[in-house]
């Protein structure tokens, strides 16, 4: 008879300790998405890009017509956030923090700071999509199986604190094997502060006092200073880590640039036009009107890479296998500062706003490889020149253009906050009740099934669990 020993039940197939740097990278890779599929949880998810009307759907138009309502956020919690919490635990627990599998990746403080920044970025995405979500009671495993929903206000407060502390936490202990900023802690710091600025601005309609105070603090701690600071997720030239638009363009071609993007670019002879979109079979650049559906779609053919159709595909710079995606860009942060200046949150007024606005456009064009000469020409176009009376519309519209196929959730959030750019809203062919662009997404089924009491409570507090319910900062 074979003796049973305790180690017999220890898996020989998986490690029992976390190599912390690989846990951080797990979170980063998860947010970029793997396998060429466009998961609904990617930072550049199709839903966010569709809501922002960067793209139109070429045939199966359910998502762009808002037929999909329930989106699942559980993956954010079980995936990147759970991994980042373990990174923090392994860097904090006295029994684990000095292990070689931890210290190989840099100092404890640096790893904790990075994990906190990423975690805050994920929670910001989650709360901006769904509104009130589990935060303070989340991620406690067996000890809290029914986490309550925290108000978005409380979550914002907590995230300001997290990001402020994290950016101050870096030391000189190094950071290694970092696939987002290659171990440059200054860039992490700039990103953290830039996210604070983004969050602060989000409060412009609901709590200007907090918004303006947090914005000033973020500026003081140091925002992004160049395109080198962009939080850029680099897809790789391999199927498992490829750009999702490239994956979609293997054969499906579900998406093409919207007529709105193309026409907005054309209106000012924007040099980004040829970068954002590819040419049709006749050499023109044509967008697909958003919300086109049913038999009306028969007139629009996107073709494929080899045989072009009569509407444009996404440009190769954005849809090649290793085309990067920018989660937060220097241009975006310049536009945020321009708006803050316009609002009087930072000094300089509209004069400073104009300067920052021009810098933002310049940064975006540079990011897209546009020459300085072409940039100067563009900046001089009457439709581009800053006009203080239309400051918000201009700044947000340019920010929207700059963020093309980047963080779609961000552009959608800014549309909800400001009403800009002027999108097609309502969408006449929409399948949701009021045909308007959603103001949030519905909770996953699991909340109703497994967390009923808290679910009922949040619905009572926030409003019906529906696409047209406005979240806290969206008033």
């Amino acid at each position, binding site marked *: 008879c*074979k003796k*049973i020993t305790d180690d017999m039940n220890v898996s020989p197939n*998986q490690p029992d300790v976390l190599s912390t740097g690989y846990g951080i990278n797990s979170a980063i890779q998860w947010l970029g998405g793997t396998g060429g599929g466009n998961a609904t949880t990617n930072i550049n998810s199709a839903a966010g890009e569709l809501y922002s009307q960067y793209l139109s759907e070429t045939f199966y138009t359910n998502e762009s017509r808002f037929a999909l309502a329930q989106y699942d956020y559980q993956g954010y919690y079980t*995936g990147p956030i759970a991994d980042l919490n373990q990174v923090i635990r392994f860097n904090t627990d006295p029994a684990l923090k000095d292990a070689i599998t931890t210290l190989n990746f840099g100092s404890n403080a640096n790893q904790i700071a990075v994990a906190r920044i990423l975690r805050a970025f994920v929670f910001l995405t989650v709360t901006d999509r769904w509104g009130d979500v589990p935060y303070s009671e989340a991620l406690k*495993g*067996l000890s809290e199986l029914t986490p309550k929903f925290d108000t978005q206000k409380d979550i914002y407060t907590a995230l300001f604190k997290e990001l402020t502390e994290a950016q101050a936490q870096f030391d000189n202990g190094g950071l290694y094997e970092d696939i987002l900023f290659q171990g440059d802690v200054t860039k992490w710091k700039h990103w953290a502060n830039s996210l604070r600025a983004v969050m602060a601005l989000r409060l412009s309609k609901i709590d200007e006092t907090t918004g303006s105070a947090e914005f000033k603090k973020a500026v003081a701690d140091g925002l992004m200073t160049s395109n080198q600071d962009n939080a850029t997720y680099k897809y790789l030239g391999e199927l*498992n880590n490829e750009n999702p638009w490239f994956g979609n363009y293997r054969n499906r071609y579900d998406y093409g640039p919207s007529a709105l993007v193309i026409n907005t670019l054309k209106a000012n002879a924007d040099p980004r036009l040829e970068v954002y979109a590819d040419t049709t079979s006749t050499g023109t650049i044509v967008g697909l009107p958003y919300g086109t559906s049913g038999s009306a779609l028969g007139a629009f053919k996107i073709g494929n890479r*080899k045989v072009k159709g009569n509407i444009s595909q996404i440009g190769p710079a954005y849809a090649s296998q290793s085309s990067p995606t920018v989660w937060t860009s220097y241009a975006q942060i310049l536009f945020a500062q321009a708006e803050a200046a316009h609002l009087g949150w930072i000094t300089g007024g509209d004069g400073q706003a104009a300067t920052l606005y021009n810098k933002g456009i310049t940064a975006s064009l540079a990011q897209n490889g546009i020459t300085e000469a072409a940039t100067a020409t563009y900046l001089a176009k009457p439709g581009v020149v800053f006009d203080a009376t239309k400051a918000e519309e201009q700044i947000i519209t340019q920010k929207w253009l700059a963020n093309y196929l980047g963080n779609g959730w961000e552009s959608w959030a800014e549309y909800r906050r400001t009403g800009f750019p002027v999108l097609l809203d309502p969408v006449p062919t929409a399948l949701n009740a009021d045909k308007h662009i959603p103001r949030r997404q519905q909770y996953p089924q699991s909340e109703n099934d497994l967390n009923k009491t808290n679910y009922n409570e949040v619905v009572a507090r926030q409003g019906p669990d529906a696409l047209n319910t406005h979240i806290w900062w969206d008033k």
Partner: protein
Amino acid sequence: QNSTVTGTVTAAADKGILPGVSVRVKESQAGTVTDANGHYSLSVPSNATALVFSFVGFAPQEVPISGRTTINVALAESSQQLGEVVVTALGISRQEKSLGYAAQQIKGENLTMTRQQDFNTALAGKVSGVQILGGSGAKFGASTVRIRGINSLSGGNPIYVVNGVVTDPNSINNDDVESLTVLKGPAATALYGQRASEGAVVITLKKGSKKGIGVSLNQTTTFERVYTLPKYQNEYGGGDSQEWNVYEYAANDPEYLKNFSGTKYYNYDVDESWGPKMDGTKYAPWYFWDPSNSDFGKLKSFVAQPDNVRDFYQTGVTTNNNVAFSKVGDTYNARVSYTNLNRTGVSPNTSQKRNNVSFNGDMKITPKFTVSANINVFQENLKNVPSEGYGTQTSGSFNQWFHRDLEMNKLKDYRRPDGTYTTWNISGPTDLTPKYWDNPYTEAYVNTTQANNNRVYGNLTAAYNFTKELKLSFIARGDYLNRDQNARVGSGTINPDAYSESSYQYKEHDYVASLEYDHMFGKDLSLRAGAFGESREDLTKYVFAGTNGGLAIPYLYTTDNSLDRPSATTIHTTKVVNSLYGYASLGYKQFLYLDLNVRNDWSSALPANNRSYLYGGASGSFVFTESGLIEKNDVLTFGKLRASVAKVGSDIDPYQVYQTYNLSTVPYGSTPIQFLPNALPNPNLQPTLSTSYELGTELHFLRGDRIRFDFNYYHRNTKNQILPLPVNGTTGYSTIIVNAGSIVNHGIEMSLGGTPIKNSNLVWDANFNIAFNRNKVVSLYPEFNTLRSTPDGAGGSTLSGFQGAGATGFGFVGSPSFSVNSVVGQPYGQLIGSGFRRDANNNIIVDADGFPERDDNVNLGSILPKFTGGFTNSITYKGVNIGFSIDYQYGGKFVSVTQQNLAGSGLALSTVGLNENGKPRRDDPSTGGGTLVKGVHEDGTPNTTFVDTRDLNEGYYSAIWEQYTYDATYIKLREVSVGYNLPKSWFGRIPLQSARFSIVAQNPWLIYTKAKVKGIDPSQLQTSFYEGGQLPATRTLGFNLNLTF
């Protein structure tokens, strides 16, 4: 010196002649059967002493020859099967009357009646309380069975014990089965320990049965065809508009298209059938645009192809050949059997080849020392086992995304001369690349899979009888499986080309030492007892290698020809269970019996503190007709009461106790990725224990057992199950391994059988059974009232490829889904999904535009049936035997994703025809077309607004699962066989004992379904609660020839 004996055999009761009676010379192989007039003639050696006459339903009779040349015999009907022996747990043979629990035995010949290859399906309808969860016969695999409802929140399957070895039902050769016993409850299975918590099927293989040499040959050939497909519409073709497109040559178009301006075509890239009316219009089919096609540039009439899907499937042919030799002597017994199976499926290019060799024998080395062995070698090659489910390229496409106008024979040319592949789903006239779908024939011939299974299992036993009463045995058992698989995605098909190979090894070693004692105390009290020590080790090893991102060099299918870094995986597992157990059976005067058993297991998969667990049971039987309490009589010829109580334990697979941080199979380039798994392990797990009791009676009426009745009540409570508790992902985990819940099953099993007619010409034996199981989820985990569950098992042995991952629900991203749930206070398996919004009078509520409104989270009913059962019959008339079996199920719900897709993509019949206005349903509502949803507005006024049929099906109904939820009630004629014992005279001097020819049919007739949805056979669903893109159900017809020498 031989002499000839002749005579006539009659029935003692009515003096009628008996044809087909076996007449044998005692202790010899010589024998014959009586002819249609009951006559026989037999050459008898001079040293023969007696003849043995035997016939089904009659008591065998041994008649001394005593020099006579004419021997006429009258056979008496056999009395109640008091002496019937049943094989129970651990292979212990017991008199049926002594059992204190329900155990139903089936003889091998009933299993092989219609030559059903799948062991489990062959059980359908034959055992009360056993529900067959089918699946299409086109899959080659074994179906699963469910015994007495669902006892576990995470599903579970019974074990299959072949001569003591627990193995897979796929590797049981029906031709070698002597008998099987289905042990249903813990009282019956406790001795098998934790693996048998969901029941056990105990199989005894054939041995050499009579002295001398025996040879039998069996040949079966069956033909399999698709018998049910959905109701397709045949009015509108592919595309998304009833308007034709007109091709106009454009400057950049290929030169060869320049004469085709003005040609009508539809949008081939749309994989739906909302296109133009199939009214004979001259149009360009997909191949019109393909210069390599023989019909390039030829217009065709746009007409329906009603049989296009059926045309894809072919007639599958199965041949099964079995030859068995046996020899029995005074000190040995041996049987060797060889079976060869060759099968082609209904899907093109699919096949199964199987060879079985089985040896079963024993040897008395000395009068006290016996050595025996059973070895089964099983070798199988599977080619392209068809896959099914949403989005699979054949069955998935035909019923989900397809064009009703496609000609299947035009798709058969799947490869162009230049090596590229054709498809119906081309991107457009100038672009022949596939949009979403490959040609189904490309799928069949290019994207291929192969699997080879080699399995050896068996046992070696050495037994020493110290005395007649005391026996010591050592048993070594082993089960060794090697499975290798490879799969390719062809270069040039729609998906990146790929190749992968995997190999899986499973080894089980099991050693048992036992001491058994059998003693009579005086005349009345018998004792049989055994003590066992067992050590079992299960080892698995899995190796996988596969390409990533495509093949570097097209058409070279090797794992190292990977464009990106190839993937490689190895998984090893070890589990050890040590056990001590024993039983004692007491019998008093042939009418009172008591059984006790106890078992303790030590499992390596459980935490150290909870590794050891003890359980057991007691059962009793009281044969009151033998007790003297009632007079012996001819009305109630046999009566017995039985009762049992038992506890059985179960544990888990290894490595669920300690936390790991898993290495991702998808690294970021050369950077490893490590993550926290979504399942939280639990260092405090305890074994699951379930308690059951059972009461029953067995009654036989009228002389000769004309009526047999069996009634059984059981109650079982399973507590503290180890289950992956699906938790809200916001906890950081998707599942948490816990001990949780309490689930109660109780039910009634009844069987009524008998021989209503039994005379010299006609014997009719019938057996009807019915089982009611009621299930209730008493509690789940604290704070949990609902739990998503996996009725088809938690995925179990996915590595071996036999069992898919257990699903808890189905849904498309972002759309309402449906799921299977355990809800406290309700039966297991509540389907919860989206339904129609209804008013107080249950009317469907529609919105202002006339579209139905939707409520999410509607309870659509339980998947568990109210009752199940079967009706088996055997009729023998003058040498002709007719057997058939019917099985049925009442209640239980399922969802058809196929129907949802059929309607949504315009393939279903329900999307065409005329509406209430007498106008085509597919016409625009503004011109009188459209569909009217029967319902009311919120204010109660009836709906009068016709809506666009496509929008309704594609945009609204598709999100309301209630629309596609059906009742699984069915009655099915599962098997029929008609056999005839060929007269011996046909074979002249060939030393044949018997020759039997039969015609067999499986699934001949789905008599009734409540759902009345054509194309869905509820007895063969893909899973236990839904189907989607399921393979079609098949029907088999064939013949069988059995020769015994």
